[in-house]
C-alpha cells in the first residue's frame, strides 16, 4: 500500500517538476507511436476498406490472416525488424537499428494489421448499407473505397485509437529495435521496464501513471474532435 501511495506521489511530483528527462521520454513516446499509427493508417485503412468491398478467391484466407496478425506478439515483430535492420541483415546498410526510426517501423508493423482488420469490419457494415447506391452511380468497388472511408471516418477514429493504444502500450518491439538508449531511444514503456529491473517499483509505477494519463489525454482529444465533427455533420 505504501508503494502505491509513494507511486502516486512520485507521479505527481514528476509531472509538477516538469522534469526535462521525463519530458523528452514522453515526447519521444508520442512521436514514435503517433508516427507509427499514421504510417500504419496509410496502408491499413485502404487495405481494410478494399477487403470489405472486394470479392476474390482466397479473400477468406486473407481476412483470417489479418485477424490473426492482430495478435502478433510485439517481441516477434521486434525480432523480425531487428534481423531486417541489423548490419548483418538485408537492410543493414541503412544503419537504422537502435534509432527512433526503427521503433516507428516496428510499431507500424504491429499496428497495421489491427487497423486493416478493424477497418474491414467497420466498412463491411457500411458497404452493406450503401452497396446498391454506390453501384447505381456506377462506382466499382475500388472506386468506392475513398467514399466509404470518408463516410466511416468517425468510426475509424476509434479504430485509430485502438492502434494507438497498442503502439503506446507495447514494450517488446521498441526494446529490441530501439535498445532503450538513454536520451535517444528511451520511451515510456522501456523506461518503466528499466526501473522495474532496478527494483525501483514506485518510480516504475509512477511512470506508468504518467503514461496512462497521456494516453487518456490523447483519447479525450480524439473524442472531442469526433463529437465536434458529428455535430457539424
Amino acid at each position: 500500500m505504501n508503494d502505491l501511495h509513494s507511486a502516486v506521489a512520485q507521479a505527481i511530483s514528476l509531472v509538477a517538476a516538469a522534469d526535462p528527462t521525463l519530458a523528452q521520454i514522453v515526447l519521444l513516446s508520442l512521436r514514435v507511436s503517433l508516427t507509427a499509427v499514421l504510417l500504419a493508417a496509410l496502408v491499413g485503412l485502404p487495405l481494410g476498406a478494399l477487403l470489405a468491398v472486394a470479392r476474390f478467391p482466397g479473400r477468406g484466407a486473407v481476412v483470417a490472416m489479418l485477424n490473426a496478425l492482430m495478435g502478433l506478439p510485439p517481441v516477434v515483430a521486434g525480432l523480425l525488424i531487428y534481423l531486417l535492420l541489423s548490419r548483418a541483415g538485408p537492410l543493414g546498410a541503412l544503419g537504422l537499428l537502435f534509432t527512433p526510426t526503427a521503433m516507428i517501423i516496428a510499431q507500424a508493423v504491429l499496428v497495421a494489421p489491427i487497423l486493416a482488420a478493424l477497418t474491414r469490419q467497420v466498412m463491411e457494415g457500411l458497404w452493406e448499407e450503401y452497396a446498391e447506391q454506390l453501384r447505381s452511380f456506377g462506382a466499382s468497388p475500388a472506386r468506392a473505397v475513398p467514399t466509404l472511408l470518408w463516410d466511416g471516418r468517425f468510426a475509424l477514429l476509434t479504430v485509430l485509437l485502438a492502434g494507438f493504444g497498442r503502439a503506446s502500450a507495447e514494450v517488446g518491439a521498441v526494446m529490441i529495435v530501439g535498445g532503450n538508449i538513454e536520451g535517444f531511444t528511451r520511451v515510456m514503456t522501456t523506461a518503466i521496464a528499466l526501473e522495474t529491473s532496478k527494483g525501483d517499483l514506485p518510480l516504475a509505477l509512477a511512470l506508468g501513471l504518467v503514461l496512462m494519463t497521456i494516453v487518456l489525454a490523447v483519447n479525450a482529444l480524439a473524442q472531442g474532435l469526433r463529437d465536434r465533427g458529428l455535430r457539424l455533420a
Partner: protein
Amino acid sequence: MLRRLLLLALLASPLPLAAQDRHITVASTTSTEQSGLFGHILPIFTRETGITVRVVALGTGQALDVGRRGDADVVFVHDRVAEQRFVTEGHGLARQHVMFNDFVIVGPEGDPAGITGSRDTAAALKRIAEANAPFISRGDRSGTHAAELRLWQQAGVDPATGRGGWYREIGQGMGPTLNTAAAQGAYALTDRGTWLSFRNRQGLGIVVEGDARLFNQYGVMLVNPQRHPHVKQAEGQRFIDWITSPAGQAAIAGYKINGEQLFFPNAAQAEPGG
C-alpha cells in the same frame, strides 16, 4: 512500398541523419548501465571529446552478439572467456582490461542454508544445493550467468539436477533476478554494483563475499572494422583510449553509491588476479 515507408519514417523523424553530431554505439551490460556508472562517466567523456555515447545495455552474451552482427562500434562486457573467443574469431580487435568489481551471493533473511558470513563460495553453494534452498539463476548467457555456472562447477554441484525444484532459471537481467529472489526468499549471485543500486530488497542481504573466486573483470574492445566497414573506428578507439587512460580510470574510481566505490579501475594491469 517498403522504401516509400522508410522514406516517410525518415521524414517524420526530426533528427536529420546526416547532420547528427558525432556518436558511437556501445553494446554493454546491464550491470554497468543499471549501477549508474555510465550515467557518471559518459558525460565526462562527451565533454572532453564531443562524442556522444549510445549505450545498449544487454547481457554479455547478447552484447557480444550485437557486436558480432556489426550493430555496435564498441563492446564493453565482463566474460573474459567469451571476450577472448570474440577476438580470436575476428569479430573484435585487441581486448583491454578496464576495471573490476566483485560478485556477491545474496540470500533471504532466514538464511535456510546457513551460509551467512562464509568466504568460501564453493562450500556455500554446496550447502544451498544440499538444503534444497531456492536459488534464482539469470539463465540468460550473461557474464554473471557464465560466472555462476563456473562457480557451481567449482563447487562440484550440477545445478541442472535442481531444475523444476530449488534451482530456478528465469532468463532475465540482474534486476528481475533480484526482484524474483526477493519475492521468493531465494539466493542469487549478483554483481556488487547492481546490488548496491537495487531498491526492492525486502529481506534480501549479502551472505557471501570476499572470495577471490568472486572477482569480476570487465573488458573493452573495438568491433572489427575489417568485417564491418561502417564501424566508427576513430571515435570508438577514442572511447577505448579514454576509458583506459588515467582520466577515464579516475572517472570510474570516482563513482560511488553511499560512499562505496563500485568499480575498481585496472586497465594498466596486464594480468589481474582471478
